[in-house]
């Protein structure tokens, strides 16, 4: 854990350390929300910039990861709103669209599409659990939720993904 006081004072070395500690988490959350790697990278950079700009207002007793993720969520939301009219996700169509059964998608695409049907919060949770291997308590701390709420979101997200896959991509389930 980096020293919040040093961050507040604008110590760049501490900031570099902080970024290397948290960038994977941020990138996974960002990708989880936006489902597009390029946008995800832009959003992460923007989130760190906003964080760095507002460093003087950091709460020394607060959980800075949670604060950082909150900034990122705001950035991602703005991006989602902006691209509401333009197709942005990595080749991901409207969720729930009837798939052509003869179209054989790679397993990765199938998973991406199944992710797309989830709600933003569920996608973030799935992202943190799968990429950073965080447990439900850690995810809860970052999102300001209880561990059991995180678990139930995760469980329902995975159930919906599974049902979607079985329905539209039965060959994946086989």
């Amino acid at each position, binding site marked *: 854990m980096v020293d919040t006081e040093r961050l507040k004072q604008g110590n760049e070395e501490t900031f570099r350390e902080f970024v290397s500690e948290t960038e*994977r988490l941020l990138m*996974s959350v960002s990708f989880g929300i936006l489902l597009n790697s390029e946008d995800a*990278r832009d959003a*992460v950079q923007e989130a760190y910039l906003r964080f760095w700009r507002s460093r003087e207002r950091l709460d020394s007793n607060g959980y800075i990861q949670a604060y950082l993720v909150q900034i990122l969520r705001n950035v991602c939301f703005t991006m989602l709103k902006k691209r509401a009219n333009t197709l942005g996700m990595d080749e991901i169509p409207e969720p729930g669209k009837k798939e052509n059964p003869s179209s054989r998608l790679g397993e990765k695409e*199938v998973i991406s599409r199944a992710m797309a049907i989830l709600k933003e919060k569920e996608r973030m949770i799935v992202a943190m659990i*799968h990429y950073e291997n965080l447990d439900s308590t850690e995810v809860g701390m970052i999102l300001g939720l209880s561990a059991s709420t995180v678990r139930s979101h995760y469980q329902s997200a995975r159930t919906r*993904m*599974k049902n979607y896959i079985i329905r539209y991509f039965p060959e994946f389930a086989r």
Partner: protein
Amino acid sequence: MKCKEIQEFLPLFQKGLLDPELTKLTSDHLTSCELCREALTLEKRVSDRLDTLFREKAEGASSVDIAEMVLKRSHGEQFSINHERKRLKLVYRFGAAAATVVLVLWLSFLFRQVNPVIEIGMIQEAPVRTAFLPESPVRTPKVRDVQRKSTVTRLKENVVWISYTN
């Protein structure tokens, strides 16, 4: 416990997020139920693909030095902020100087244009014969009586004689 319930636990079970009691129940059930073992296989595959997906997407980030880019952008902003401040300071200084000049010009213009007519009225019904003009920057004020027809003769720089012509 029914298969349906067990299958709902599988994602949490397989990620080790299930509480110990339910974990035990689930794993006992799995040893005896072929159907649920199949379901677990699918959940595992989904889980593995999710891991891969995030690994690929998120690792793309580490090839870029985010911290450096952010600091550079921040320095750039700081530079332009300082630059902007200096520019603004100059603008303010110039503005203040220009405003002073304009004010001085305006005031001198105003004093030139001060109403050059000095009006003399009656003082307690008695007509005023002599009047002292107020100190004024106006060089040659015109003097007239507002109440009666009169001719005004200038005696001194600031003293006039008024003769009434009924």
